[in-house]
């Protein structure tokens, strides 16, 4: 792997890195508002983004560097099973079409910055809102760590970062620099920095995919050749399991896993705080709906990207760590300068989501832990200050995680994070449509889902790991192998419904609902909904 530094590729990579760094700092002046010391400004970019900025921001946010590395890596490792990412992203958009505009409206009306703000306002329960906030932070942290794993994979293939024998400081220095710079401009520019950088990131990604999907198959002799050699590779027996390595289509038994993974992941995606942060930063309700019709362009790109996994096999890329398959494919196939562009695309692809995720986690902490539990009378200026500092801490935490622990730990936690975040679905999406669920029942359902999901994931063994070996397990009562997160979610829902009946029966207090039905359909410009928002705290006086 570390067969010397690829000078040209590195130079191109550094060029783009310096470019986005400059943009990141200049972003603070982009569409600057009069009062910049509010969480609406720093944490939501002034809630001012139109259709295209939102499109780039959401695309840059959801399709992370880790996605670019991990999806083809899964295909490279096992074939069809890894392709579930495509139906997953197909299902996301019709799904969010139904509920995201409602969340936007109610958040705009009441000045909510996070999903927990909404849950608090809707159900009048600090406990439930804390549960949602903590789940969000826990699920986001390993996700940030994985962005670092993405950058590391690229640095590794470029030959920077040294070999096994260099000391840890020299080895990790490039990563430390990249992260230090990221932390600095996120601190100063807030959400505007990733929004501006997302333009560069997505443009690079689209160019790289377009070139890769034409250039590499031509060099390898066409898709016939590629799939023929993939078929051959998958039929070889894996010595660890005694079974074939993979297959070109899912087996009968694998179809449940495939479908449940796609559905469960689609339900979970917009529960993640960073997805919501990017959503709430848009200017109007229409921007969100319009985006559900143009965001699928990214799904198409993801599908093409996944095919690179087959190309890596056909090109004879042999790596122990599947994460390196795609960067290595680029290095082998492309001229050095274009490999540099491709690496820059992945590297910047890590910076954008990492920035948004740290902002989202910081907002959750500030609004739903700091303000609700520590300092209820915090001014907007203090809120912003706390959020900025927490965004730094979150990043340092993720960095420490990656540097001190094995990569598989980050991946395990990311897997758990997906299962966990899905458990906030009943409170959030349920709450957007009905007040029928009882707040304590929602807490009960959430707790059951969290515990079941964690225990079930702990019990999954793989040839290389005793615990957290995968995200699929036998579904109790059905007997098929399915996504643990979805099983936990169904369990969560059942418990919530049953407990709601129980709470109703014993007349447990319902809590105050601060929202009214017309809040959910309000758009910017309606009476009572200023196009220009009041300061972040005004709408949600606690």
């Amino acid at each position, binding site marked *: 792997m570390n067969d010397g530094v690829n000078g040209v590729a590195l130079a191109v990579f550094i060029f783009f890195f310096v470019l986005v760094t400059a943009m990141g700092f200049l972003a603070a002046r982009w569409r600057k508002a009069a009062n910049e010391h509010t969480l609406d400004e720093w944490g939501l970019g002034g809630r001012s983004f139109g259709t295209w900025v939102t499109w780039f921001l959401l695309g840059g946010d959801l399709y992370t560097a880790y996605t670019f590395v991990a999806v083809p890596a899964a295909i490279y490792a096992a074939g*069809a099973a890894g392709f579930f990412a495509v139906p997953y992203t197909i299902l996301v958009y019709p799904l969010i079409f139904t509920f995201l505009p409602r969340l936007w409206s109610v958040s705009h009306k009441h000045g909510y910055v996070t999903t927990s703000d909404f849950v608090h306002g809707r159900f009048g329960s600090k406990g439930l809102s804390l549960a949602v906030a903590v789940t969000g932070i826990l699920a986001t942290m390993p996700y940030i760590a994985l962005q670092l794993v993405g950058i590391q994979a690229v640095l590794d293939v470029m030959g920077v970062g040294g070999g096994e024998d260099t000391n840890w400081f020299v080895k990790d220095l490039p990563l430390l620099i990249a992260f230090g710079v990221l932390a600095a401009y996120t601190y100063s520019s807030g959400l505007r920095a990733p929004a501006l950088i997302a333009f560069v990131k997505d443009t690079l990604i689209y160019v790289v995919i377009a070139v890769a999907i034409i250039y590499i198959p031509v060099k390898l002799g066409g898709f016939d050749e590629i799939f023929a050699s993939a078929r051959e590779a998958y039929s070889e027996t894996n010595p660890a399991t005694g079974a074939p390595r993979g297959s070109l289509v899912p087996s009968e038994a694998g179809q449940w896993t*495939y479908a449940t993974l796609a559905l469960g992941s689609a339900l979970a995606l917009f529960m993640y705080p960073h997805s919501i942060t990017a959503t709430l930063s848009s200017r109007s309700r229409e921007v969100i709906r319009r985006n559900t019709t143009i965001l699928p362009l990214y799904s198409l790109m993801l599908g093409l990207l996944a095919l690179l996994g087959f190309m890596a096999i056909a090109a004879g890329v042999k790596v122990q760590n599947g994460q390196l398959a795609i960067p290595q494919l680029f290095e082998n196939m492309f001229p050095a300068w274009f490999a540099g562009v491709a690496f820059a695309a992945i590297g910047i692809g890590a910076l954008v989501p990492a920035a948004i995720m740290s902002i989202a986690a910081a907002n959750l902490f500030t609004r739903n832990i700091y303000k609700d539990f520590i300092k209820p009378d915090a001014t907007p200026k203090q809120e912003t200050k706390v959020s900025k500092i927490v965004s730094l801490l979150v990043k340092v935490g993720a960095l420490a995680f990656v540097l001190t622990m094995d990569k598989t730990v980050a991946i395990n936690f990311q897997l758990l994070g997906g299962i966990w975040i899905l458990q906030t679905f009943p409170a959030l999406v349920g709450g957007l449509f009905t007040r029928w669920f009882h707040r304590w029942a929602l807490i009960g359902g959430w707790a059951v889902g969290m515990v079941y999901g964690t225990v079930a994931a702990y019990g999954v063994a793989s040839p290389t790991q005793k615990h957290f070996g995968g995200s699929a397990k036998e579904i109790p009562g059905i007997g098929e192998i399915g996504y643990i997160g979805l099983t936990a979610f169904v369990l969560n829902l059942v418990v919530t419904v049953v407990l709601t009946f129980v709470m109703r029966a014993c007349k447990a207090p319902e809590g105050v609902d601060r929202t009214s039905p017309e809040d959910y359909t309000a758009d910017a410009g309606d009476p009572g909904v200023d196009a220009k928002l009041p300061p972040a705290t005004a709408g949600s006086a606690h």
Partner: protein
Amino acid sequence: MSQAPETKEGPVVTPVRVVIALCLAAPFVAMLWVGSYAKTDPVVIGIPFFYWYQMLWVLISTLLTMVAYKLWQRDQRARSAAKGGDPR
């Protein structure tokens, strides 16, 4: 702007809304029924059916979501016009 607090909404379920629901539900049926597309043939330009079919569905579901969006917009305009407000 819809200034009058008129609550004379039309019926909740209308033919247009049923079409919208169908447009949004179709991708779920198609994608979750994995058995319907878990096969390699027919191969197109060397790509097995399993892969190109799902990528084709990216386009189909995009079109369906666009149709749903347009119909929804029209539905909302008609409703706010009926309420005597600005058609937005």
